[in-house]
Protein backbone atom coordinates (compact mmCIF):
# COMPACT_ATOMS: atom_id res chain seq x y z
CA UNK A 1 0.00 0.00 0.00
CA UNK A 2 2.86 2.36 0.83
CA UNK A 3 4.30 2.23 -2.71
CA UNK A 4 0.79 3.04 -3.97
CA UNK A 5 0.74 6.12 -1.78
CA UNK A 6 4.09 7.31 -3.12
CA UNK A 7 2.80 6.65 -6.65
CA UNK A 8 -0.35 8.62 -5.91
CA UNK A 9 1.72 11.52 -4.52
CA UNK A 10 3.91 11.52 -7.61
CA UNK A 11 0.86 11.39 -9.90
CA UNK A 12 -0.68 14.35 -8.06
CA UNK A 13 2.56 16.29 -8.51
CA UNK A 14 2.66 15.56 -12.25
CA UNK A 15 -0.99 16.60 -12.58
CA UNK A 16 -0.26 19.87 -10.74
CA UNK A 17 2.66 20.65 -13.10
CA UNK A 18 0.60 19.78 -16.21
CA UNK A 19 -2.43 21.69 -14.87
CA UNK A 20 -0.14 24.68 -14.35
CA UNK A 21 1.00 24.40 -17.95
CA UNK A 22 -2.59 24.45 -19.19
CA UNK A 23 -3.37 27.44 -16.92
CA UNK A 24 -0.40 29.44 -18.23
CA UNK A 25 -0.87 28.49 -21.89
CA UNK A 26 -4.69 28.74 -21.92
CA UNK A 27 -5.53 31.39 -19.33
CA UNK A 28 -2.39 33.54 -19.35
CA UNK A 29 -2.77 35.17 -22.78
CA UNK A 30 -6.60 35.38 -22.56
CA UNK A 31 -7.84 39.02 -22.84
CA UNK A 32 -11.02 40.80 -23.92
CA UNK A 33 -10.94 44.40 -25.22
CA UNK A 34 -14.48 45.15 -26.44
CA UNK A 35 -16.11 45.82 -23.04
CA UNK A 36 -14.45 49.14 -22.22
CA UNK A 37 -13.00 49.58 -18.75
CA UNK A 38 -14.73 46.43 -17.47
CA UNK A 39 -12.83 44.14 -19.85
CA UNK A 40 -10.52 42.81 -17.14
CA UNK A 41 -13.45 41.87 -14.88
CA UNK A 42 -15.14 39.92 -17.70
CA UNK A 43 -11.86 38.29 -18.70
CA UNK A 44 -11.25 37.36 -15.04
CA UNK A 45 -14.77 35.90 -14.80
CA UNK A 46 -14.12 33.70 -17.84
CA UNK A 47 -10.75 32.70 -16.37
CA UNK A 48 -12.50 31.74 -13.12
CA UNK A 49 -14.95 29.53 -15.05
CA UNK A 50 -12.14 27.82 -17.00
CA UNK A 51 -10.08 27.36 -13.82
CA UNK A 52 -13.06 25.79 -12.03
CA UNK A 53 -13.61 23.39 -14.94
CA UNK A 54 -9.91 22.48 -14.80
CA UNK A 55 -10.14 21.84 -11.04
CA UNK A 56 -13.18 19.59 -11.53
CA UNK A 57 -11.34 17.63 -14.25
CA UNK A 58 -8.30 17.41 -11.94
CA UNK A 59 -10.41 16.01 -9.09
CA UNK A 60 -12.13 13.48 -11.40
CA UNK A 61 -8.75 12.36 -12.76
CA UNK A 62 -7.39 11.98 -9.23
CA UNK A 63 -10.45 10.01 -8.20
CA UNK A 64 -9.99 7.57 -11.11
CA UNK A 65 -6.26 7.37 -10.40
CA UNK A 66 -6.88 6.72 -6.70
CA UNK A 67 -9.26 3.85 -7.48
CA UNK A 68 -6.88 2.39 -10.06
CA UNK A 69 -3.74 2.56 -7.86
CA UNK A 70 -5.29 1.32 -4.63
CA UNK A 71 -7.44 -1.43 -6.18
CA UNK A 72 -4.33 -2.70 -7.98
CA UNK A 73 -2.39 -2.64 -4.66
CA UNK A 74 -5.14 -4.42 -2.72
CA UNK A 75 -5.47 -7.12 -5.42
CA UNK A 76 -1.70 -7.83 -5.49
Amino acid at each position, binding site marked *: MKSGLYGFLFAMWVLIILGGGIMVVLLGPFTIQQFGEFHWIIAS*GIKVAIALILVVIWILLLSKLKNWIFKKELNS
Partner: protein
Amino acid sequence: MIELIIPAVISCLLAFFVVYFTTPPLIKILAKKNYAVKDMNKKENVMIVRPGGPSIILGIVVSEIVLYGFFQLNEILAIIITTTAAFVIGYVDDRKVMGGWFKPVTLAIAALPIIFLGAYDSDLAFPLFGDVQIPLLYLGLIVFMIPITGNTINSIDVLNGVASGFMVIASFSLSICLFILQNYEIAIVSLPLGFVSLAFYKYHKIPSKIFPGDSGALTFGAMYGVIAIVGGVEIIAAIALLPAVINSFLFLSSVKRVVEHRQIKNPTMLTPDFKLMTTDDKTAPVTLVRLILAGGPLTEKQVAHSIFKLAIFSGGLAIISAFMMVVSI
Protein backbone atom coordinates in the same frame (compact mmCIF):
# COMPACT_ATOMS: atom_id res chain seq x y z
CA MET B 1 23.56 39.74 4.28
CA ILE B 2 24.27 40.34 7.98
CA GLU B 3 21.10 42.48 8.18
CA LEU B 4 19.14 39.31 7.28
CA ILE B 5 21.08 36.79 9.38
CA ILE B 6 20.67 38.62 12.72
CA PRO B 7 16.83 38.89 12.59
CA ALA B 8 16.65 35.30 11.29
CA VAL B 9 18.69 33.92 14.20
CA ILE B 10 16.89 36.02 16.86
CA SER B 11 13.40 35.15 15.59
CA CYS B 12 14.17 31.44 15.24
CA LEU B 13 15.62 31.24 18.77
CA LEU B 14 12.63 33.15 20.16
CA ALA B 15 10.12 30.99 18.26
CA PHE B 16 11.70 27.78 19.55
CA PHE B 17 12.35 28.73 23.15
CA VAL B 18 9.07 30.59 23.78
CA VAL B 19 7.17 27.38 22.92
CA TYR B 20 9.76 25.16 24.62
CA PHE B 21 9.49 27.02 27.93
CA THR B 22 5.79 28.01 27.93
CA THR B 23 4.36 24.57 27.06
CA PRO B 24 5.23 22.82 30.39
CA PRO B 25 3.44 25.49 32.52
CA LEU B 26 0.54 25.39 30.04
CA ILE B 27 0.33 21.61 30.54
CA LYS B 28 0.17 22.16 34.34
CA ILE B 29 -2.55 24.84 34.05
CA LEU B 30 -4.65 22.69 31.67
CA ALA B 31 -4.25 19.64 33.92
CA LYS B 32 -5.36 21.68 36.97
CA LYS B 33 -8.46 22.84 35.04
CA ASN B 34 -9.03 19.24 33.88
CA TYR B 35 -9.05 20.26 30.21
CA ALA B 36 -8.15 16.76 29.04
CA VAL B 37 -9.37 14.19 26.52
CA LYS B 38 -8.86 10.44 26.26
CA ASP B 39 -6.06 9.26 23.98
CA MET B 40 -8.04 6.77 21.89
CA ASN B 41 -5.00 4.78 20.72
CA LYS B 42 -3.56 3.77 24.10
CA LYS B 43 -4.19 0.57 26.03
CA GLU B 44 -4.65 2.31 29.37
CA ASN B 45 -7.19 5.03 29.99
CA VAL B 46 -4.70 7.83 29.26
CA MET B 47 -5.94 11.42 29.48
CA ILE B 48 -4.02 14.12 27.57
CA VAL B 49 -4.45 17.86 28.14
CA ARG B 50 -5.42 20.22 25.32
CA PRO B 51 -5.21 22.70 23.67
CA GLY B 52 -1.56 23.58 23.08
CA GLY B 53 -2.60 26.46 20.83
CA PRO B 54 -1.79 29.24 23.37
CA SER B 55 1.94 28.41 23.54
CA ILE B 56 2.10 27.92 19.74
CA ILE B 57 0.53 31.32 18.97
CA LEU B 58 2.70 33.01 21.61
CA GLY B 59 5.86 31.69 19.93
CA ILE B 60 4.65 32.80 16.50
CA VAL B 61 3.48 36.29 17.55
CA VAL B 62 6.61 37.09 19.60
CA SER B 63 9.00 36.02 16.82
CA GLU B 64 7.00 37.75 14.06
CA ILE B 65 6.76 41.03 16.07
CA VAL B 66 10.55 40.98 16.40
CA LEU B 67 10.84 40.40 12.64
CA TYR B 68 8.44 43.30 12.03
CA GLY B 69 10.80 45.49 14.07
CA PHE B 70 13.54 44.67 11.55
CA PHE B 71 11.62 44.58 8.24
CA GLN B 72 8.33 46.60 8.65
CA LEU B 73 6.60 44.47 6.01
CA ASN B 74 2.82 44.36 5.57
CA GLU B 75 3.29 40.65 4.88
CA ILE B 76 4.38 40.14 8.51
CA LEU B 77 1.32 42.05 9.78
CA ALA B 78 -0.88 39.82 7.59
CA ILE B 79 0.76 36.72 9.09
CA ILE B 80 0.29 37.97 12.66
CA ILE B 81 -3.36 39.06 12.22
CA THR B 82 -4.61 36.08 10.18
CA THR B 83 -2.77 33.50 12.28
CA THR B 84 -4.01 35.06 15.53
CA ALA B 85 -7.56 35.08 14.16
CA ALA B 86 -7.20 31.39 13.22
CA PHE B 87 -6.00 30.66 16.77
CA VAL B 88 -9.06 32.43 18.25
CA ILE B 89 -11.38 30.47 15.90
CA GLY B 90 -9.71 27.21 16.92
CA TYR B 91 -9.83 28.14 20.60
CA VAL B 92 -13.57 28.84 20.40
CA ASP B 93 -13.99 25.41 18.77
CA ASP B 94 -11.82 23.81 21.48
CA ARG B 95 -13.97 25.25 24.26
CA LYS B 96 -17.38 24.98 22.62
CA VAL B 97 -18.09 22.42 19.89
CA MET B 98 -19.28 24.40 16.85
CA GLY B 99 -21.00 23.20 13.66
CA GLY B 100 -19.14 21.94 10.56
CA TRP B 101 -19.66 25.33 8.83
CA PHE B 102 -18.01 27.38 11.64
CA LYS B 103 -14.34 26.86 10.85
CA PRO B 104 -14.43 27.22 7.02
CA VAL B 105 -16.56 30.40 7.16
CA THR B 106 -14.66 32.13 9.96
CA LEU B 107 -11.26 31.15 8.52
CA ALA B 108 -12.32 32.69 5.19
CA ILE B 109 -13.07 35.92 7.09
CA ALA B 110 -9.69 35.60 8.86
CA ALA B 111 -8.02 35.67 5.43
CA LEU B 112 -9.38 39.16 4.61
CA PRO B 113 -6.51 41.11 6.30
CA ILE B 114 -4.18 39.69 3.61
CA ILE B 115 -6.33 41.45 0.98
CA PHE B 116 -6.81 44.68 2.99
CA LEU B 117 -3.07 44.96 3.66
CA GLY B 118 -2.28 44.28 -0.01
CA ALA B 119 0.15 41.57 1.07
CA TYR B 120 -0.20 39.50 -2.08
CA ASP B 121 0.71 39.39 -5.74
CA SER B 122 -2.13 38.28 -8.03
CA ASP B 123 0.26 36.35 -10.32
CA LEU B 124 0.10 32.60 -9.76
CA ALA B 125 3.52 31.05 -10.40
CA PHE B 126 3.77 27.51 -11.83
CA PRO B 127 6.91 25.38 -12.14
CA LEU B 128 8.37 25.27 -15.69
CA PHE B 129 5.56 27.28 -17.32
CA GLY B 130 5.86 30.66 -15.55
CA ASP B 131 3.19 33.02 -14.18
CA VAL B 132 -0.46 33.55 -14.95
CA GLN B 133 -2.26 36.80 -14.04
CA ILE B 134 -5.62 36.11 -12.38
CA PRO B 135 -6.57 39.29 -10.44
CA LEU B 136 -10.19 38.37 -9.62
CA LEU B 137 -9.63 34.64 -9.26
CA TYR B 138 -6.70 35.30 -6.94
CA LEU B 139 -8.93 37.12 -4.42
CA GLY B 140 -11.09 33.99 -4.29
CA LEU B 141 -7.95 31.87 -3.91
CA ILE B 142 -6.89 33.89 -0.84
CA VAL B 143 -10.30 33.49 0.79
CA PHE B 144 -10.32 29.73 0.09
CA MET B 145 -6.68 29.02 0.85
CA ILE B 146 -6.68 29.74 4.60
CA PRO B 147 -9.71 27.50 5.39
CA ILE B 148 -8.17 24.76 3.22
CA THR B 149 -4.70 24.81 4.80
CA GLY B 150 -6.16 25.23 8.30
CA ASN B 151 -8.58 22.34 7.97
CA THR B 152 -6.04 20.18 6.12
CA ILE B 153 -3.59 20.35 9.03
CA ASN B 154 -6.46 19.91 11.49
CA SER B 155 -7.62 16.76 9.67
CA ILE B 156 -4.17 15.16 9.87
CA ASP B 157 -4.00 15.72 13.64
CA VAL B 158 -5.09 12.14 14.35
CA LEU B 159 -2.12 10.49 16.06
CA ASN B 160 0.45 11.56 18.66
CA GLY B 161 2.94 14.01 17.14
CA VAL B 162 1.68 13.83 13.56
CA ALA B 163 0.35 17.40 13.10
CA SER B 164 3.42 19.09 14.62
CA GLY B 165 5.94 16.65 13.07
CA PHE B 166 4.31 16.99 9.67
CA MET B 167 4.36 20.78 10.03
CA VAL B 168 8.10 20.74 10.84
CA ILE B 169 8.82 18.92 7.55
CA ALA B 170 6.36 20.90 5.39
CA SER B 171 7.29 24.35 6.73
CA PHE B 172 11.06 23.82 6.53
CA SER B 173 10.58 22.50 2.96
CA LEU B 174 8.65 25.68 2.14
CA SER B 175 11.38 27.85 3.71
CA ILE B 176 14.05 26.06 1.63
CA CYS B 177 11.94 26.70 -1.49
CA LEU B 178 11.67 30.41 -0.64
CA PHE B 179 15.47 30.58 -0.23
CA ILE B 180 15.92 28.81 -3.62
CA LEU B 181 13.61 31.41 -5.20
CA GLN B 182 15.72 34.15 -3.52
CA ASN B 183 12.69 35.52 -1.66
CA TYR B 184 14.94 35.94 1.38
CA GLU B 185 12.78 38.18 3.57
CA ILE B 186 9.69 35.94 3.37
CA ALA B 187 11.92 32.88 3.78
CA ILE B 188 13.17 34.33 7.09
CA VAL B 189 9.60 35.27 8.07
CA SER B 190 8.57 31.64 7.40
CA LEU B 191 11.28 30.06 9.56
CA PRO B 192 9.55 30.63 12.96
CA LEU B 193 6.73 28.28 11.88
CA GLY B 194 9.20 25.41 11.57
CA PHE B 195 10.89 26.22 14.87
CA VAL B 196 7.57 26.63 16.74
CA SER B 197 6.42 23.26 15.33
CA LEU B 198 9.73 21.65 16.29
CA ALA B 199 9.53 22.91 19.90
CA PHE B 200 5.91 21.79 20.23
CA TYR B 201 6.76 18.38 18.72
CA LYS B 202 8.91 17.70 21.79
CA TYR B 203 5.74 17.58 23.93
CA HIS B 204 3.37 16.27 21.23
CA LYS B 205 5.40 13.27 20.02
CA ILE B 206 4.55 9.74 21.24
CA PRO B 207 3.64 9.52 24.10
CA SER B 208 1.96 12.95 23.92
CA LYS B 209 1.96 15.21 26.96
CA ILE B 210 -0.32 17.73 25.23
CA PHE B 211 -2.49 17.87 22.10
CA PRO B 212 -2.47 21.01 19.92
CA GLY B 213 -6.27 21.03 19.69
CA ASP B 214 -8.09 22.94 16.98
CA SER B 215 -6.45 26.18 18.16
CA GLY B 216 -2.97 24.72 17.58
CA ALA B 217 -3.74 22.89 14.31
CA LEU B 218 -5.57 25.87 12.77
CA THR B 219 -2.73 28.19 13.84
CA PHE B 220 -0.20 25.94 12.08
CA GLY B 221 -2.34 25.60 8.95
CA ALA B 222 -3.35 29.26 8.69
CA MET B 223 0.21 30.54 9.07
CA TYR B 224 1.38 28.05 6.44
CA GLY B 225 -1.36 29.33 4.09
CA VAL B 226 -0.48 33.00 4.65
CA ILE B 227 3.23 32.33 4.00
CA ALA B 228 2.27 30.59 0.74
CA ILE B 229 0.26 33.64 -0.36
CA VAL B 230 2.63 36.43 0.74
CA GLY B 231 5.63 34.47 -0.57
CA GLY B 232 3.97 33.82 -3.94
CA VAL B 233 4.61 30.08 -3.57
CA GLU B 234 1.03 28.79 -3.47
CA ILE B 235 1.65 25.83 -5.80
CA ILE B 236 4.89 24.79 -4.08
CA ALA B 237 3.14 25.03 -0.69
CA ALA B 238 0.35 22.78 -1.95
CA ILE B 239 2.94 20.24 -3.17
CA ALA B 240 4.74 20.18 0.22
CA LEU B 241 1.35 19.60 1.86
CA LEU B 242 0.30 16.78 -0.49
CA PRO B 243 0.06 13.90 2.06
CA ALA B 244 -2.34 16.01 4.14
CA VAL B 245 -4.17 17.06 0.96
CA ILE B 246 -4.52 13.35 0.06
CA ASN B 247 -5.97 12.73 3.53
CA SER B 248 -8.60 15.46 3.04
CA PHE B 249 -9.26 14.32 -0.54
CA LEU B 250 -9.77 10.67 0.50
CA PHE B 251 -11.94 11.76 3.41
CA LEU B 252 -14.16 14.05 1.33
CA SER B 253 -14.46 11.60 -1.57
CA SER B 254 -15.65 8.87 0.85
CA VAL B 255 -17.86 11.01 3.14
CA LYS B 256 -19.01 13.28 0.26
CA ARG B 257 -19.79 16.28 2.48
CA VAL B 258 -18.08 18.81 4.79
CA VAL B 259 -18.44 17.39 8.28
CA GLU B 260 -16.91 18.04 11.69
CA HIS B 261 -14.35 15.29 12.46
CA ARG B 262 -15.96 14.55 15.82
CA GLN B 263 -19.13 13.43 14.03
CA ILE B 264 -17.51 10.67 11.97
CA LYS B 265 -16.74 7.05 12.81
CA ASN B 266 -13.17 6.15 13.73
CA PRO B 267 -11.62 4.53 10.63
CA THR B 268 -9.18 2.53 12.80
CA MET B 269 -9.38 0.22 15.82
CA LEU B 270 -6.95 -1.46 18.20
CA THR B 271 -5.75 -5.08 17.95
CA PRO B 272 -5.45 -7.16 21.17
CA ASP B 273 -1.72 -6.30 21.24
CA PHE B 274 -2.65 -2.58 20.91
CA LYS B 275 -1.57 -2.01 17.34
CA LEU B 276 -3.69 0.08 15.00
CA MET B 277 -5.68 -1.74 12.33
CA THR B 278 -8.21 -0.61 9.77
CA THR B 279 -11.87 -1.05 10.75
CA ASP B 280 -14.24 -3.46 8.99
CA ASP B 281 -16.96 -0.80 9.08
CA LYS B 282 -17.63 0.07 5.44
CA THR B 283 -19.34 3.34 6.43
CA ALA B 284 -16.21 4.68 8.16
CA PRO B 285 -14.32 7.25 6.05
CA VAL B 286 -11.23 6.40 4.00
CA THR B 287 -8.24 8.32 5.37
CA LEU B 288 -4.47 8.37 4.91
CA VAL B 289 -4.00 6.37 8.13
CA ARG B 290 -6.53 3.77 6.97
CA LEU B 291 -4.65 3.34 3.67
CA ILE B 292 -1.30 3.02 5.47
CA LEU B 293 -2.89 0.31 7.67
CA ALA B 294 -4.34 -1.56 4.67
CA GLY B 295 -1.11 -3.60 4.53
CA GLY B 296 -1.64 -4.85 8.12
CA PRO B 297 -1.65 -3.63 11.74
CA LEU B 298 1.08 -1.19 12.79
CA THR B 299 1.99 0.62 16.00
CA GLU B 300 1.03 4.28 16.35
CA LYS B 301 4.71 5.20 16.06
CA GLN B 302 5.11 3.22 12.82
CA VAL B 303 2.07 4.93 11.27
CA ALA B 304 3.39 8.36 12.31
CA HIS B 305 6.80 7.57 10.77
CA SER B 306 5.09 6.43 7.54
CA ILE B 307 3.31 9.81 7.36
CA PHE B 308 6.60 11.64 8.03
CA LYS B 309 8.29 9.69 5.19
CA LEU B 310 5.48 10.72 2.85
CA ALA B 311 5.93 14.34 4.04
CA ILE B 312 9.68 14.17 3.32
CA PHE B 313 8.91 12.76 -0.15
CA SER B 314 6.47 15.57 -0.95
CA GLY B 315 8.87 18.13 0.59
CA GLY B 316 11.47 16.83 -1.89
CA LEU B 317 9.00 17.24 -4.75
CA ALA B 318 8.34 20.82 -3.54
CA ILE B 319 12.08 21.60 -3.58
CA ILE B 320 12.41 20.12 -7.10
CA SER B 321 9.43 22.30 -8.11
CA ALA B 322 11.19 25.37 -6.69
CA PHE B 323 14.20 24.64 -8.90
CA MET B 324 11.76 24.19 -11.82
CA MET B 325 10.40 27.70 -11.08
CA VAL B 326 13.81 29.16 -11.83
CA VAL B 327 13.77 27.70 -15.36
CA SER B 328 10.89 28.12 -17.80
CA ILE B 329 10.06 26.45 -21.10
